[in-house]
């Protein structure tokens, strides 16, 4: 017969379990409310015109849709991904394949961590100083926004890639080397393909994070109403569109902000979901 636990201790246990459960539920409350309001306020704004017309920019009358913002977000984030993903994976490859424990790679690792902690607005400021103030390629431009976002995404890509590349079994590398393969072939034919699903997942999560950022775009890509496919011009984007619409007094513009927010969150969620599905299919957790 096991001695029963003293009543006081059992009570404490039950109370604390309830407290921890309560904390978890509290953590989920904002998620429920944000999603609820996004649908409640945003669904009314969604229509065919919402996706196919540009913001009119007029003070009165119909505010127009957000076509230019959607195009801008896809273009800016796409270029940012093209810059950040190869560079980020390259740095991670160096850290895993060539610099496991030397001082230099530990310093690099430290500064990649530092970059993760830099506030996104400071990246925006930096690009503003370096590329906008100096007037390289005109004033504000979509590609400058892309570079600011790429700086933000780079450390995220590197850190996740370093983990995934580190999981590739050393026996695979050694087997290839023993068969006489040169190092670069080992990297491109063995290491990268083995780690591919994990690399894709990490990169997509980084892209999802970049897509929602507003601050780095404020004074790099700026904003215009008209749709443009030219990254050399000023570009609109969904986060900036929302940021500007929130501060307008007209109800139909605020409604457009909710519609844009719903669109943006849906885009990010779809990316995240695909990334997680790829992760689940891969052999590495």
């Amino acid at each position, binding site marked *: 017969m096991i001695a029963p636990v003293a009543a006081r201790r059992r009570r404490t246990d039950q109370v604390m379990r309830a407290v921890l459960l309560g904390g978890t539920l509290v953590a989920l409350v904002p998620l429920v409310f944000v999603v609820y309001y996004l649908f409640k306020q945003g669904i009314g704004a969604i229509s065919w015109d919402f996706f196919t017309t540009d913001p009119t920019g007029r003070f009165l009358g119909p505010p127009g849709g957000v076509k230019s913002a959607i195009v801008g977000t896809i273009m800016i984030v796409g270029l940012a991904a093209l810059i950040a993903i190869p560079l980020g994976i390259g740095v991670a490859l160096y850290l895993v394949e060539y610099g496991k424990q030397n001082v230099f790679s530990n310093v690099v690792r430290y500064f990649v961590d530092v970059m993760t902690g830099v506030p996104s607005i400071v990246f925006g*400021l930096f690009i503003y100083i370096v590329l906008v103030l100096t007037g390289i390629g005109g004033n504000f431009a979509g590609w400058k926004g892309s570079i600011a976002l790429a700086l933000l995404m780079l450390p995220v890509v590197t850190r996740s890639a370093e983990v995934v590349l580190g999981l590739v079994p050393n026996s695979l590398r050694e087997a290839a080397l023993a068969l006489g393969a040169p190092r670069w072939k080992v990297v491109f034919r063995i290491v990268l393909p083995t780690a591919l699903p994990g690399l894709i997942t990490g990169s997509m999560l980084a892209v999802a994070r970049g897509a*929602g950022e507003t601050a780095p775009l404020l004074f790099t890509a700026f904003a215009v109403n008209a749709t443009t496919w030219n990254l050399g011009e000023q570009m609109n984007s969904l986060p900036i569109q929302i940021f500007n619409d929130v501060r307008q007094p007209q109800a139909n513009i605020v409604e457009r902000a909710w519609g844009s927010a719903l669109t943006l969150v849906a885009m990010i969620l779809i990316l995240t979901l695909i990334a997680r599905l790829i992760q689940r299919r891969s052999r590495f957790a």
Partner: protein
Amino acid sequence: MATGTVASGDRIASRSPLSRLPDRLLRWVLTGLAAAILLLIAFFFIRLATESEPVFSKYGVIDFVFSDEWVPSQELYGALPLLVGTIITSVIALAIGVPVAVASALYITELAPQRLKQPLTILVELLAAVPSVVYGLWGVFVLIPKLRPAEQWFSDTFAFLPFVGGDVAGPNSFIAGLILAIMILPIVSAISREVMATVPVEQKEAALALGATRWEMIRMAVLPYSRAGISGAAMLGLGRAIGETIAATLVIGNAAVIGDSIFSQGYTLAAVIANEFGEAASDPTHRAALIAAGLVLFVLTLIVNALARYFVLRSERATARRVPKGMAG
């Protein structure tokens, strides 16, 4: 891969220098990339410093940071209200966010039924998928109006507490802190979960075998083990809260004053940059002042993140020391 001889004396075929070229190329390119990161950050720091130099040389570093009037129209640039606003909102964010995050991490790792663990983890992480500007939008049109009566009641009832009392402004520091708390929750929870997962199973089982209840096991085995890691997680959350811009600028009221209570309007270092940059583009001093605010923000997050790293590393080392290899479960 060098040329050499095997025991029997046969020569191993050596690679021609030409075929080794790609090898060296790859090595140098990758090393160059890694070095570029260091150069980039050095360049980053230098550019921010040189661009904000006009303000520092005109007002002095100490005066810029510690004088309390920020009135761009009169060329007064004292960052103290911004600094105080940043600290107040971050402290509120930590005070609300960290306990909730740790509770959820403990529940998910130690108490939740197995089949609920994965869904709960995903749900908490979804909080991180919502962009800052969407939290701002939600804060402006939902949180501010809905919470105002509750805030006023709290302010009236607990007026004897410091920094509480008086009229509640619509957008205010508390709302900003609350939104920041929601935004740091996923990262603090994720790192706490990681740290808690490293607690050796033996310790937990030993506590349970000695008759401890679940909570006693958490208190005696899990918490002491993960304390440093949780501190690190909280510091990382603090770093996020300090740098968070868009949500804060939408809900804090953007008034560069040091308010009497947490329910007054305020301003943060990050918010001032986002909010005033448009008008500052044509005024070099104002622009330099905003860049200087960015530099202060950058240095602040550097310090906080270095501390966070120190705590997390110490926690990892402690685990490595106490647990013999192969027993870590």
